[in-house]
């Protein structure tokens, strides 16, 4: 059998990608491709898990039984997404506990938006509508990502996210059509979440170091700026439909391009929150670390029990 050298392996790998053939766990892949995917998928998994906290914050205070049930189901979905995604990183040889430790040490990142506090019931609407809405824009192209297990996980994730987005919009719509207090609550949530939602697409293309290589590997299909534009175009119309105002004085429709032109994003704020200086970074990570520490005796018990049973079985 002919042994291929790295250059040939690389060429064959890129050929597969160019022909839209999925890369599977046992296929040869360049180490940088593997590492990029582990980084991206585990960040995505961490975002799902950390994202349970700001929404979990309102389950016990949901205003009626239906909303409580829907929010519980939604947050449960997020946990499920986290689980698939950690499993997808495991197909690349990463260890779930190690990737979680990287989150806890601050080495691995997660979506910055979850470092903002959820201050009112309307924030459950704003998160579903804007945050899940932005996530969908990012994630729908990932269903065609070159790495098979990630692409397949994203198909299911996107179906559920699209449901979440609609439930969030429905919460906002109900508030926007409600009493003056409810409408205020909805507008306030939009004011607080609008800009962080735009930041979710990441830095502008010129400042996004990993983008170009990821496009070549078909991990990424559209640029950050294109996706952000798509999100703005879709969301401005939705806000208008329910009578809420996008908190951007520079926002205007550009007839020539058919797109909305929007104001300058405060990238300074973005980088500060990424660095750990957002309003809830510490609370979110502390909560995750504490869950792991408090659960240690439970995990040890489960391991000890299963070892005991294995001995009994073999005896």
């Amino acid at each position: 059998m002919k042994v291929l050298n790295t250059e040939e392996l690389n060429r064959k790998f890129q050929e597969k990608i160019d022909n839209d053939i999925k890369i599977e766990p046992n296929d040869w892949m360049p180490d940088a491709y593997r590492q990029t995917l582990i980084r991206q998928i585990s960040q995505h998994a961490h975002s799902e898990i950390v994202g349970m906290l700001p929404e979990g914050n309102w389950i016990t205070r949901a205003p009626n039984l239906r909303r409580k049930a829907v929010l519980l189901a939604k947050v449960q979905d997020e946990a499920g997404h986290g689980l698939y995604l950690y499993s997808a990183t495991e197909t690349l040889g990463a260890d779930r506990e190690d990737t979680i430790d990287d989150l806890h040490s601050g080495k691995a990142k997660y979506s910055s938006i979850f470092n903002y506090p959820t201050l009112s019931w309307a924030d459950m609407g704003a998160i579903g509508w804007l945050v899940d809405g932005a996530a969908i824009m990012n994630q729908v192209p990932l269903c065609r990502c070159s790495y098979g297990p990630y692409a397949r996980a994203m198909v299911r994730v996107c179906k559920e996210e699209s449901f979440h987005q609609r439930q969030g919009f429905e919460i906002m719509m109900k508030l926007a059509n409600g009493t003056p207090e409810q409408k205020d609550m909805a507008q306030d949530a939009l004011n607080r979440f609008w800009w962080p939602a735009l930041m979710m697409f990441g830095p502008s293309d010129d400042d996004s170091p990993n983008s170009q290589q990821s496009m070549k590997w078909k991990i990424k299909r559209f640029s950050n700026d294109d996706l952000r534009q798509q999100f703005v175009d879709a969301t401005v119309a939705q806000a208008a439909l329910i009578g809420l105002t996008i908190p951007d004085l520079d926002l205007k429709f550009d007839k020539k391009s058919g797109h909305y032109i929007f104001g300058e994003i405060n990238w300074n704020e973005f980088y500060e929150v990424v660095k750990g200086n957002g309003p809830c970074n510490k609370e979110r990570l502390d909560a995750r670390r504490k869950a792991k520490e408090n659960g240690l005796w439970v995990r040890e018990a489960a391991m000890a029990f299963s070892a005991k049973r294995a001995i009994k079985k073999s005896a």
Partner: protein
Amino acid sequence: MTKNEALFNYTLRLGDDSLILGQRLAEWCGHGPILEEDIAITNISLDLIGQATNLLNYAALIENKDRNADNIAFLRLEKEYCNILLVEQLNGDFGDTMMRQFLFDAFRKPLFEMLQFSKDKQLAAIAEKSLKETKYHLKHSSEWIIRLGDGTEESHQRVQNSLTNLWRYTDELFFTDESDTLLGELEIIPDFSKIKEVWSANVTAVFEQATLQIPANNWQFEGGRKGRHSEHMGYLLAELQYMQRAYPNMEW
């Protein structure tokens, strides 16, 4: 007491047990010992909130006073809630939560098994639907009790303490009064002594596998069914009712 009054009382009691335990479990969201348990606990909480919705809607229908499940769930005074004390107890550690759950599930499963043959069609239907979920809940909580009891020395000690602390709330699972007597005579609800037989056999078997001891001190508390709750209840209701109290008469 009329049949309708008794049926209202009974449905409300079952509904409140589901509501309050579902509310307690929701507090775990995002803080579980492993991701799989975050999924399991939110799922059980969701099932219980679903049961509460069905039961309280039915209670509202029986009562016929222009209330719905939400009004009943969110707008009563503390003394008007009639859940048992067990379900309002604090989550504590994971062992406390699983022990509370196990003692409750081991009661709910035989209850729903028998209640699905109730002469009241609606209660029978709710029981049949709830039974499917409760079987999973009991499987899940039993397995954890055995694992923790027969796991490490630390887990054994912790979950033994959970049992010691929670045992005194178990008699109230079988609380009966004139409502139950009347509904029992009409074959609308099962005989509580039969449920207790199944419950006792099940908990004894699980504790044996888990190497746990039922406490020698059998002093029992009660009060929840009569609206007399523990100190924890007010805080639970403050959260549960927050939106409805702060923004009265609004649609969400």
